[in-house]
């Protein structure tokens, strides 16, 4: 009689064990089939949040970029996870080649300016990469989560999935059609209300298909010059490319990868290098030789020659209202006669560049590009 539990009993015991284990230590990361993405972000097990704090699961590695895309002053928490034993292949230019099963995550969050639950959302215009503390935790009394975007690598390619966080900050839900939030940005002097837009799944491809003809979804950030920087891991600070290589997540990295260029760190690089890094990160996903904006004949990639196709003395083509009565994309020495700067300095959807992911003006980015154009020699 004893010693033989019925099958159902076994299952129940297993479920209980899972439950007990789960409440103490979460289950590992799970890759779901491409055609049935889960409604709840927690089902992936990458990001763990209980309403009080957010942290990453075991094996999920956070990272920062040298020059991130500007997204309405949102702070961004990035992570990479790969199946055990798999590793990404290093590439000198372009993004690394990631193995099937890779999950990249990006969590958009803000520092709160007001109490939890306030409407509209009052947030601080903060100047840092993310709110993650030294212990690898994000304090949800101090920060508010808006959305988490996943990029998942399947056999047939990458899939983009936008998840939107709830007010209790313990779950995010799949919103393939995107979403909008009213946010008020506080910079200590004034409050700037704006509509924060969570892109829909198609719009993810608006940036993440940098070759418009091939139309393949690809990650944009994780490339050598973007990752070549220090990160403060719980075990201590270390170069990200070194760390990825050391833990077996990255194969083929050389001794000295391309120098990282940080747009916001004046000491590191020349204004030209910083401005070009900024334009690459913010523009070149469309404005490259094969991108959706190749219709304009403008190529702002970090490797593109600094000539007419880069906008120097280039008149516009189908600019519409975006010209601002200015003659050239970039007029050397004359930022106020440069179309590029006009479009960066506006938030009207008919004028603003980039077209997606920005409802506010990035003052610091405008300033950087303005100074660079002002210092460019030559005339048109």
């Amino acid at each position: 009689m004893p010693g033989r539990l019925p099958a159902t009993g076994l299952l129940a015991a297993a479920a209980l064990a899972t439950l007990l284990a789960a409440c103490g230590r979460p289950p590992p990361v799970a890759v779901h089939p491409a055609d049935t993405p889960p409604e709840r972000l927690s089902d992936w097990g990458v990001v763990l949040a209980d309403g009080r704090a957010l942290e990453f699961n075991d094996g999920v590695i956070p990272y920062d970029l040298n020059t991130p895309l500007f997204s309405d002053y949102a702070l961004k928490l990035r992570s990479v996870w790969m199946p055990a034993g798999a590793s990404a292949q290093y590439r000198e230019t372009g993004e690394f080649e990631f193995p099937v099963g890779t999950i990249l995550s990006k969590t958009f969050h803000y520092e709160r300016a007001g109490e939890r639950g306030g409407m509209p959302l009052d947030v601080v215009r903060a100047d840092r990469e993310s709110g993650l503390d030294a212990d690898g935790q994000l304090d949800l009394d101090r920060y508010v989560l808006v959305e988490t975007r996943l990029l998942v690598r399947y056999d047939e390619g990458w899939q983009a999935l936008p998840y939107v966080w709830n007010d209790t900050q313990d779950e995010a839900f799949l919103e393939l059609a995107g979403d909008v939030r009213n946010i008020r940005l506080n910079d200590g002097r004034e409050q700037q209300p704006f509509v924060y837009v969570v892109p829909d799944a198609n719009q993810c491809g608006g940036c993440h298909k940098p070759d418009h003809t091939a139309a393949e979804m690809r990650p944009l950030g994780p490339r050598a010059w973007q990752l070549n920087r220090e990160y403060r891991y719980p075990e201590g600070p270390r170069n990200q490319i070194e760390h990825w290589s050391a833990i077996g997540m990255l194969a083929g990295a050389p001794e000295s990868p391309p120098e990282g260029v940080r747009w916001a760190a004046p000491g590191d690089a020349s204004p030209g290098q910083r401005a070009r890094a900024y334009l690459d990160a913010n523009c070149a996903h469309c404005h490259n030789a094969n991108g959706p904006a190749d219709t304009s004949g403008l190529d702002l990639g970090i490797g593109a020659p600094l000539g007419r196709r880069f906008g120097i003395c280039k008149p516009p083509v189908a600019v519409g209202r975006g010209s601002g009565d200015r003659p050239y994309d970039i007029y050397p020495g004359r930022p106020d006669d440069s179309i590029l700067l006009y479009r960066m300095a506006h938030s009207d959807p008919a004028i603003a560049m980039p077209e997606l992911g920005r409802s506010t003006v990035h003052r610091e980015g405008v300033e950087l590009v303005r100074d660079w154009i002002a210092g460019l020699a030559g005339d048109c």
Partner: protein
Amino acid sequence: MRNALSTVLVLGVAVLLASCSGSEGPERELLESEFQKQLQMQLIKAKPGDVITIPEGVHPINRGLSLNVSGVTLRGLGMDKSILSFKGQVQGAEGLLVNASDFTIEDLAIEDTAGDALKINEGRNIVIRRVRTEWTNGPDEKNGAYGIYPVQVENVLLEDSVAIGASDAGLYVGQSRNVVVRNNRVEFNVAGIEIENTVHADVYGNLARNNTGGILVFNMPDLPNPGHSTRIFSNEVVGNNTANFGAEGTPVASVPAGSGIVINSNDRVEIFDNVITDNNTANIIISSYFATGYQGTREMVDDYDPYPETIYIYGNTLSGGGSAPDGLELKALKVAKFGLTGSFPDVLWDGYVNTDKADEHGRLTPEFAICVDNDTAEVLNVDLGNGSENIVIGDEQHRCTHEKLPAVMLADPLY
């Protein structure tokens, strides 16, 4: 294998959620309509062969819509019945952005978008039929730039559509190949119809009225391919005298009000059997890139040809044009040459010539000539390159003909 494993894990996580977190459904501010979300979901999840229907009604949309799946039809119940209204749009440089082939859109309207109304960027076998794009407040610099805007497309039929109020071009076909634009109505745009850097376009049966310029055929520099071989025939191009309301700095902002048909820097263009009347600057204007007043001519790219060549104009009904040209210089020129009550001839030419293609008198060789074989119509060469020092009317060099261009043959499945 992975699927089975995942299923177990998913169950585990579900248990975890149920027991540990006490999570509830999403709570969000309702800032946009259910219809909008549903429509974008349909566009995201579309499969080849799908027909997505826009029901009757005015549907407010506040973010740009997009479609990336080929083989889809988007269909309303009529351009005055199924209306997507983008008034107050907060995001998106277009109303609807399509990157797909074998796409048909018909019987609906797109109104009041912040930027372009309908943009189709790369694709083959596209049909746009009985679509209306309109800025309902009338001509205004703040209107979006383009109404219907296919670019880098091939094998395209754009017919029976209506475009009103675009601050650039109502119908704009750019960098494309094998295009038919027929039986459309364009009104109160800066440019009614614009064909740019496109190879093999037939533009016929259209009504272009009350625009700044009726029908434009342009070539712009810095683009992958120059255009050529456009036929403009059997259109009505009437009274395009609306003041130019294009944003300064855009190429079309240099088009004078009162322009009927304008050829700029494009080659092998045929204009025949049209009714072109009462366009106050000129019924037909032929110009080079140098005449546009655009910047950047000094550093013209090497492979760009700024001259209009091999132009053939015949069989049109021309009347009433050139009586009140736009712009001080043209006004002064008209008064000086033709008097207060006189008019410019029907065809205005800036007179710039590529000397490599001209004879010793500076006249284009027969292959490249601007030929006007149209009843009594005359060409006015305003000699812009020499400060209008040697203005010529009715020069012999234009009394010529060219071999006619073949009709555009749309390929299967459109024909």
